[in-house]
C-alpha cells in the first residue's frame, strides 16, 4: 500500500518565467508537487563587472555599480564611494553626507516597496504590486529631479556628488513622506494581515538563525531570522550614528521566526524606519556646503587595498578595492548580498510545494543583476 508517488520530474523554472525576477533558471526536482531539490543556475545576466572595472578609471566604475543592483543603484554607488573615500582618506562635508543618507534611504524605501509588491504578486495579489509601484514612481521622480535619471543615477562621486540637490527638493521630499506614510499602512492592511497571505507565507521556508548565519545571509533576510544585525547600527558608516532608528527583527508573529512572512514584514517595518531617518536627515541637513568641495582633481589612490561594507536594501554590500597606484584599479571585488540569499534557497526551499518555493524565492528578494554582476 502506498500513496501515489508521482514520478520524479525535473522542472526548469526560468530563465523565462514570471516568478524568477529576472533571468534566473531554477532546476527543480519534484515529486508530484513537492520540491525535493532546487539548483539555481545563474549567469544569464553576467556582465563581467569585476573584470570590466580593471580596465576603466576609478570614476568610470561608478556607472557600472549602478547596474549591479538596478533596484537600489544609489546604495551601490554609496558603497563604492565609501570604499574609495576610505582608500584615499577623503573626508566629505556634512551636507554631502546628509544628502547621501537621504538618497540611500529613499532608495531603500523604493527597493522594499518593489520587493513587498512583487512578493504579493508572486502569491497572486496583483493590486498591491501596482500600488507599490505607484509610490515607487514618486521616489523615482525625486531622483530624477535630483540627478536627471530615474534608474541608473551615477549620482555619488568619490569625494562628493555629481550635483547638489535642487531648490525645493527638501520640501517635495517632506511632501512625499506625508503622502507616503498612510500608504504604507494601506499596504500592510491589504497584504500583511490578509489571512490568505499569512497562510501562504507563515511557517513557510523557515530560515533558522544558524542557517542564515552559516550561509552568510545578510540584510532583512538575516534580520527576519531574528538576528539584530544592521551595519548602520553595528558598524556605522557615513553619519548613520547620528540618527535614531530601530532595527526590526523577525518575531515569528504569525508563524515561526524566519519564515516568509517575517521576511516580508521586516521590510515593511524597515520602510517606516527609513522614513524616520529621512525626516531626521532632512531636518538636520546643513543649508550651505559645496558638494564638490572635496572632489579630487585626479583620482589616483595610493598603493594599497580597502574593504568597506555598507547596508543596502538587500544586505551587506562589500567592496574590496586594490590599488597599484595607477588611475585604474588593480582589482575590484564586490560581495553582493543577494548572491548569498539565493544560495540559501536550496537549503530552505527543498521539501516545500512548488508554490511555496516561489513564495520563498520572492521573499528572499533577489536581484539578478547583482547576483550575476
Amino acid at each position: 500500500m502506498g500513496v501515489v508517488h508521482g514520478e520524479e520530474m525535473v522542472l526548469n523554472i526560468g530563465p523565462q518565467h514570471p516568478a524568477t525576477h529576472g533571468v534566473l533558471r531554477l532546476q527543480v526536482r519534484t515529486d508530484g508537487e513537492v520540491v525535493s531539490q532546487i539548483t539555481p543556475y545563474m549567469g544569464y545576466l553576467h556582465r563581467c563587472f569585476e573584470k570590466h572595472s580593471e580596465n576603466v578609471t576609478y570614476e568610470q566604475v561608478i556607472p557600472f555599480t549602478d547596474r549591479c543592483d538596478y533596484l537600489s543603484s544609489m546604495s551601490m554607488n554609496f558603497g563604492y564611494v565609501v570604499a574609495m573615500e576610505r582608500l584615499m582618506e577623503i573626508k566629505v562635508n556634512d551636507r554631502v553626507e546628509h544628502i547621501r543618507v537621504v538618497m540611500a534611504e529613499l532608495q531603500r524605501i523604493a527597493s522594499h516597496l518593489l520587493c513587498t509588491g512583487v512578493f504579493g504578486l508572486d502569491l497572486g495579489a496583483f493590486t498591491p504590486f501596482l500600488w507599490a509601484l505607484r509610490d515607487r514612481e514618486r521616489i523615482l521622480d525625486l531622483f530624477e529631479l535630483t540627478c536627471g535619471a530615474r534608474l541608473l543615477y551615477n549620482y555619488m562621486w568619490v569625494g562628493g556628488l555629481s550635483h547638489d540637490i535642487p531648490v525645493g527638493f527638501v520640501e517635495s521630499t517632506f511632501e512625499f513622506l506625508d503622502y507616503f506614510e498612510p500608504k504604507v499602512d494601506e499596504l500592510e492592511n491589504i497584504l500583511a494581515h490578509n489571512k490568505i497571505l499569512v497562510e501562504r507565507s507563515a511557517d513557510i521556508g523557515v530560515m533558522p538563525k544558524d542557517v542564515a548565519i552559516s550561509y552568510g545571509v545578510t540584510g532583512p533576510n538575516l534580520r527576519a531570522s531574528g538576528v539584530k544585525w544592521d551595519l548602520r547600527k553595528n558598524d556605522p558608516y557615513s553619519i548613520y550614528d547620528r540618527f535614531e532608528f530601530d532595527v526590526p527583527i523577525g518575531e515569528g508573529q504569525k508563524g515561526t521566526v524566519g519564515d516568509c512572512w517575517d521576511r516580508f514584514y521586516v521590510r515593511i517595518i524597515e520602510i517606516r524606519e527609513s522614513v524616520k531617518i529621512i525626516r531626521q536627515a532632512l531636518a538636520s541637513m546643513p543649508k550651505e556646503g559645496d558638494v564638490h568641495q572635496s572632489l579630487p582633481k585626479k583620482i589616483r589612490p595610493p598603493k594599497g587595498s580597502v574593504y568597506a561594507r555598507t547596508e543596502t536594501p538587500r544586505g551587506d554590500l562589500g567592496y574590496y578595492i586594490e590599488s597599484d597606484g595607477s588611475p585604474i584599479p588593480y582589482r575590484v571585488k564586490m560581495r553582493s548580498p543577494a548572491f548569498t540569499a539565493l544560495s540559501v534557497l536550496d537549503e530552505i526551499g527543498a521539501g516545500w510545494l512548488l508554490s511555496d518555493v516561489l513564495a520563498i524565492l520572492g521573499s528572499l528578494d533577489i536581484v539578478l543583476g547583482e547576483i550575476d554582476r
Partner: protein
Amino acid sequence: MIKYFSDIFTAVSTIAGGMFITLTHLVKAKKGIATLQYPEERWPRPERNIGFNSESYNVIRSRLHVDMDDCIGCLKCERACPVDCIKIETAKAPERGEDIKDVKHVGITTNGTRKAMVVTRFDIDMTECCYCNLCTYPCPEECIFMTGGPNGKKHPIDYEFSEPDRSDLIYRFAKPGTKEGMENILNEKSKVEA
C-alpha cells in the same frame, strides 16, 4: 476547535478589510489615478533649479548632443566615457583660430577659445551610451551635453528617439564633408610644400 473558528473569523475579517480598501480605491478612482495617457499626455519634466544664475537647469539624461561649432577636439569626453561610445578624429587646422569655409569650420568658440584642431569625425553610438553623464563634465567648452542640459532652451527635451534602423542611432556630429575637405586641404598643402 476554537482555533478552527477563529481562523475562519480572521480569514473573513481580513479579506473583508482588504475588499473594503480596494472598494475605496474603486470608488475614489478619479482622485487617485496615476496613469498618464502617453501619446496625449507627456511625462512632466521636473524643472530643476540648483540655485545657479541660470533660471532653469535641467539635468535630464536624454540623448547626447554636441555643439560642433564649439568643439575644440580635446578628446576629454572620449577618455571619460566608460563604454567608449564616443569616437573622435581630428586634424590639425592649417591655422589656429581661422575659419575654414570649405569645411564649415569655425575658428573660435563661443567662449572665445581659438581652435587648433579641426574635428573630422565625432561619432557617438547611442546604442552603447550608458547615460552616465560622465562625458559632459570634463568638456572645457561645455559643448557636449545631454539634451535638456544647460542649453535647454535650444534643445527640447526628448526621449522618443527610437529609430527603425539601428545605424541611425550612430550620431555623426562632424559636419558633412569635413573629413574629405580636410584631406583635400592637407593634400594641397603638402603638395604646395612639396
